């Protein structure tokens, strides 16, 4: 009896009309709470000022505002780091699976070192310690920190993906005389992509979000730009809401794009 009642409740809640209205009610409640809260502390809302920080139209045409410029820097930073982290991660994964005792030890050492330090401390290490020693600037420190940090996580994704390919595939490749490198390139890696895509998407979304941390060394990306605008205008509520929305839009677009890609890979094999 009880199970049946629960089942009916679930069905009612999942009906599109009910689900959408419930969602709207919850969002409205949050908006109302923050609005009245801000009202009570005498906050002066200035939403009308926000679009000017995103873009303006002048006689010269479209002008990107500070937030768009910051977004572009975030995208550029994330893309660069993702590419570097992927290459580094692949290297670490291959080293770990190489069957060489030294290779395995180096890979595990790297992985455990990077994974078990807070990202913020790693950033300080690169910026305040390695930066002056090797003479690189804040942008390079930011890129290196994020690449190294995420390469450790990505190498685990690669390792899992490579291990998901059946042992028989290695044997078949070996039986036609392929070297280990050829087997990886032509047989194993193309098949592991399917297993790696979903977690890799998760990782690039994580990377975009953790890229905000480089604002502590004043790299001019989205979060830094937001902080700068606020120190000029004191519009903390509007700007942080906007910055959050921009991050959200970026990561959502990415997730949908990749799930389309996944569907294509799934039908191909």
């Amino acid at each position, binding site marked *: 009896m009880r199970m049946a009642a629960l089942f009916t409740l679930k069905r009612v809640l999942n009906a599109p009309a009910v689900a959408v209205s419930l969602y709207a009610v919850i969002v409205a409640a949050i908006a109302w709470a923050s609005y009245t809260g801000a009202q009570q502390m005498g906050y002066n809302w200035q939403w009308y000022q926000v679009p000017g920080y995103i873009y303006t139209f002048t006689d010269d045409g479209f002008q990107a505002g500070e937030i768009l410029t910051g977004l572009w820097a975030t995208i550029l930073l994330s893309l660069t780091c993702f590419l570097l982290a992927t290459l580094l991660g692949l290297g670490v994964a291959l080293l770990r699976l190489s069957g060489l005792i030294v290779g395995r030890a180096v890979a595990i050492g790297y992985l455990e070192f990077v994974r078990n330090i807070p990202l913020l401390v790693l950033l300080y290490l690169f910026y305040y310690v390695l930066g002056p020693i090797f003479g690189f600037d804040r942008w390079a420190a930011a890129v290196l920190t994020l690449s190294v940090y995420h390469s450790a996580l990505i190498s685990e994704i690669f390792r899992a993906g490579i291990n998901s390919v059946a042992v*028989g*595939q290695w*044997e078949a490749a070996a*039986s*036609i*005389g*392929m070297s280990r490198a*050829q087997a990886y390139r032509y047989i194993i890696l193309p*098949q592991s992509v399917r297993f790696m895509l979903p977690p890799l998407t998760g990782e690039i979304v994580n990377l975009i979000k953790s890229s905000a941390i480089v604002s502590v060394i004043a790299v001019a990306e989205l979060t830094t730009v937001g902080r700068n605008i606020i120190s000029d205008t004191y519009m903390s509520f509007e700007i942080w809401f906007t910055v959050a929305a921009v991050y959200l839009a970026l990561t959502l677009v990415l997730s949908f794009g990749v799930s389309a890609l996944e569907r294509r890979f799934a039908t191909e*094999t």
Partner: protein
Amino acid sequence: MVQTPIIIAEGVGKYFGDFKALTDVDLIVNQGERVVICGPSGSGKSTLIRCFNGLENHDTGRLCVDGMELREDAPGMRQLRQDVGMVFQQFNLFPHLTILENLIIGPMKVRKQSRAAAEATARKYLERVRIPEQADKRPAQLSGGQQQRVAIARALCMQPRVMLFDEPTSALDPEMIGEVLDVMVELAETGMTMVVVTHEMGFARKVADTMVFMEAGRIVEVSPPETFFTAPKSQRARVFLDQILEH
């Protein structure tokens, strides 16, 4: 007829941890000979045949294939595997490649043939295993019997000097076993050297020059099929044959 040995095993032993999978195996396979290895499961048949192309490394004794002594990580191992074809129980086709690509990837990437030459050879062998029309499909679109015939063609495309078959029909539905065995019989008629691990005694009777019976990691009996099937020398082989021929 002059006999040229192509596989020579002398006192070969193999351990998996503490388990002794092969004990003191002596066997000679001559050029053009068809050897069928049978025996109860767990008797070391597959392990032995996998040692012949270095997929498993033997721990003791001496193993020479095609004039080369096999050792773990010996420099010639890759060259050797190009000349020794292998067909697996689970087919092990490359699922992300089309049938034609499965056949040409070895000749192109390993033997460095041109695509045109590799394709010509591939189509010839697809013809021979009777599935030329499936060239552009992917393995998952084929039946088990068709997949195993593709696997045979893939091995043949490397122009091997010996073909090893590791229970090639054990993973197949009964109605598909015949089509794979037919291809293997035809291959035997071309004079290919074959070492086949199988329970298909009808096939063995038809093509084998030599029957090898294994139990518990040892070779118990080596005899020509006419002796083996009518009057096996060992008691164990007799019991085994009674069991599998009963049905």
